[in-house]
C-alpha cells in the first residue's frame, strides 16, 4: 500500500484532517531542504509536498515564483531533489512525499527514467501542474512505477471532467479553492465548502484543499469539511530569508505548529 493511502486511512480513523505543507525544494538553501522536511513532520505535517522549481511557473504567484528563481540560481535540479528525498527517507520511512512541478523538467529528464528514480528515492506521488487529465497518457509511466498521480480540480472544472477526474483519482484530489494563482487572497470558505461537499460525496479518495490558506484560522475553517489542507505560499514566504539551516527549521516549526494545533482543536467539529 502506498504511504499516501496509509496516511489517510490512519487519519480517517482518528477523524483528523491532514496537514500538508508545501515547500520549494532547495529554497531558501539547498542544504536546508531535508532538515526542514523533518522539522515540518516534527511540527505536525502528515504529508509533504515538495515543489520542483521551474523557470516558467505559470500557475504560481510571486512568492513561489521567487522561491523557484532562488533555487534555480543555485542550480537545483531533479537529481538534487530526488537525492534529498532519499536522505529524508533514511530517518523517516512513513511520511508520504509528493513532488509537485511542471512538465518540461520531467519530460526532458525522461518520464520513465524520472518515474523509476522517484519511486526508488521514496517518492509516493506526483502532481504535474500543467498536465491535465486530457494529457494523462503522457504520465502513464508514473502510474506504472507505482507512483500516485495527484490530480487538480478547480472551481471552473466542468461536470463531465469532474467525473473523469474522480474516476482517475489516486492518492487524493487536490481542490484548488479559487480561480487564480498560488498565494492570492481570494479564499471564500462557503463557496469552497459547497464544492468540496459534492466532491467528497463522490470521490473514492480523500479531498485536499489548497490555495489561499495561510494560517491556523483559515486552515481550521477549511478543515471542517475536507480531508486535508495544503499550505504553500505563506510557509515559503516565511522561510524565504532564513539565513541558515537552523533558522529555516525553526521558522518551519514555529509556522506549522500553531496550524496543527488549530486543526486539532477543530477536530471536534468534524
Amino acid at each position, binding site marked *: 500500500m502506498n504511504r499516501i493511502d496509509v496516511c489517510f486511512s490512519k487519519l480517517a480513523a482518528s477523524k483528523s484532517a491532514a496537514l500538508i505543507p508545501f515547500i520549494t525544494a532547495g529554497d531558501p538553501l539547498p542544504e536546508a531542504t531535508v532538515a526542514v522536511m523533518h522539522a515540518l513532520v516534527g511540527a505536525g505535517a502528515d504529508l509533504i509536498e515538495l515543489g520542483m522549481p*521551474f*523557470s*516558467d*511557473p*505559470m*500557475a504560481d*504567484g*510571486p512568492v513561489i*515564483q*521567487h522561491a523557484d*528563481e532562488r533555487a*534555480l540560481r543555485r*542550480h537545483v*535540479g*531533479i537529481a538534487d531533489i530526488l537525492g534529498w528525498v532519499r536522505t529524508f527517507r533514511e530517518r523517516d520511512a512513513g511520511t508520504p512525499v509528493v513532488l509537485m512541478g*511542471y*512538465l*518540461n*523538467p*520531467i*519530460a*526532458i*529528464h525522461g518520464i520513465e527514467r524520472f518515474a523509476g528514480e522517484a519511486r526508488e528515492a521514496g517518492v509516493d506521488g506526483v502532481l504535474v*501542474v*500543467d*498536465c*491535465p487529465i*486530457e*494529457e494523462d497518457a503522457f504520465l502513464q509511466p508514473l502510474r506504472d512505477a507505482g507512483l500516485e498521480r495527484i*490530480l*487538480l*480540480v*478547480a*472551481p*471552473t*472544472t*466542468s461536470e463531465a*471532467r469532474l467525473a473523469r477526474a474522480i474516476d482517475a483519482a489516486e492518492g487524493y484530489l487536490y481542490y*484548488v479553492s479559487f*480561480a*487564480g*494563482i498560488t498565494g*492570492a487572497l*481570494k479564499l471564500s470558505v462557503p463557496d469552497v465548502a459547497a464544492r468540496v461537499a459534492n466532491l467528497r460525496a463522490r470521490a473514492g479518495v480523500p479531498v485536499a484543499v489548497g490555495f489561499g490558506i495561510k494560517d491556523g484560522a483559515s486552515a481550521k475553517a477549511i478543515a471542517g469539511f475536507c480531508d486535508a489542507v495544503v499550505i504553500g505560499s505563506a510557509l515559503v514566504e516565511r522561510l524565504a530569508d532564513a539565513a541558515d539551516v537552523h533558522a529555516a527549521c525553526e521558522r518551519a516549526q514555529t509556522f506549522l505548529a500553531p496550524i496543527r494545533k488549530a486543526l486539532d482543536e477543530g477536530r471536534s467539529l468534524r
Partner: protein
Amino acid sequence: MQIADYHAYPDAHGRFGPYGGTFVAETLIAPLEELTAAYTRLRDDPAFQREFTDDLKHYVGRPSPIYHARRLSQQVGGAQILLKREDLNHTGAHKINNTVGQALVARAMGKRRIIAEAGAGQHGVATATVCARFGMKCVVYMGAVDIERQKINVYRMKLLGAEVVPVRSGSQTLKDALNEALRDWVTNVADTFYIIGTVAGPHPYPMMVRDFNAVAGREARAQMLEEYGRLPDVLTACVGGGSNAIGLFHAFLNDRDVRIVGAEAAGEGLATGRHAASLAAGRPGVLHGNRTYVLCDDDGQITETHSVSAGLDYPGVGPEHAFLKDTGRAEYVGVTDDEALAAFHLLCETEGILAALESSHAVAQAIKLARDYPKDALILCNLSGRGDKDVHTISKREGMEL
C-alpha cells in the same frame, strides 16, 4: 512520415502529430473549452467570416501586394525574389490579421476585457488597436527589459488606451510576459479574453491564430497563379513563434513541389548558444501549454534567448512548425544578427523598403536561397513587418546616436 493532407491538422485534441495539445493548469481548461467551442462555431459561420473579411479589406487594407524586388534580385544574381508585403498592413505588420479575428471572437463571446502579451510590442500595438476600435478594455503584459528597449511601441499602446503592465519575473522578456498573461487569465477567467499573438499556447490558439493569419498564404497563392501563372519554387519567412510563417506556408503545404524554408534567429551564431533557434537547436519539450521544440538546459529549465530582433526572441515555437520540421515538409535554418542586418541594408538600398528586423531574417534567407537557384526561379519571401520601430536599435548598434 507521409502526410496525406496537411490541412487536416490539428486533430480534435489540438495535436499536430506529437506536438500541440493542452498543457495548462486545471483552472484554464474550462475557458479553453469554451473558446474552442465558440471558435469552432464561428469558423463555420458565414456572417462571422464575412465580417472578418470585410474588416481585413477596409480596416487592415488587404489584400497586400506581391512585389517583385528586381534590383535586389539582380544584385544577388540568382533567382527572382518576390516579397509578400505584409508590412503594408494597418499598424505595419501581419499581427493585425490575428487581432482583428480574435477581437471578433471575443465580442461574439461577450468578453469585454482583453489581455495580451508583448515582446517587441507589435502584437501589443495590434491588440490595443482593435480594442480601441471595439471599445474594449485592454491590458498588455510586457517584460520590463522589453519595455525599456521598445519605448515607442509602449507609448503607441498607451495612446491607444491600453494599460501596459511591466513584468519583472524571470528574464523579464516575452516568455515571462506570456506567463503573466496566463496568470491574469486564470484569475479573471469569467470576463477576460486572452489574445495570444502567435501560433503557440494551448489548443485552440495555434489553430485559431494560424487560421486568421492564413489569409496571407491564400492571397499569395492566388496572386502567384494570376500574376506569374505558377506557384513559387520556394517560400521563406522568419520564425519566432511562427505566426507570419505559418500564415504564408499553410495554403501551400499540400503543394509538394513548393519548397518551404523557415528562418530562425541564430543571433550571434548557433555555436555560441546566444540565439533563439528553437527548431534548429532545441528539443521537444513543453512550454506555454503545448508540446513543441524548446530551448532549455538538461534540467528542463527554459533558457534565455538572444536575437537582435525582439520579435524572434522566444524559446519556443508553434507546434505546427515542430510537426512540419519532423515530417520534413519544411526546413528550418538559422540566420544570424549580422546576416539579418546586412539584408536589412541591402533591401533598403536596392528597393527603398525598410523591413522589420524580424522580416530581415527572411530577406537574408531569401538572398541565400536565390544564389542556389537559376534566374527564372521564383522565391516568395514574407515581408512580415516594416522596420520603423527598429531604427533606434539599428542606429545604436551601428554607433550612431539619434
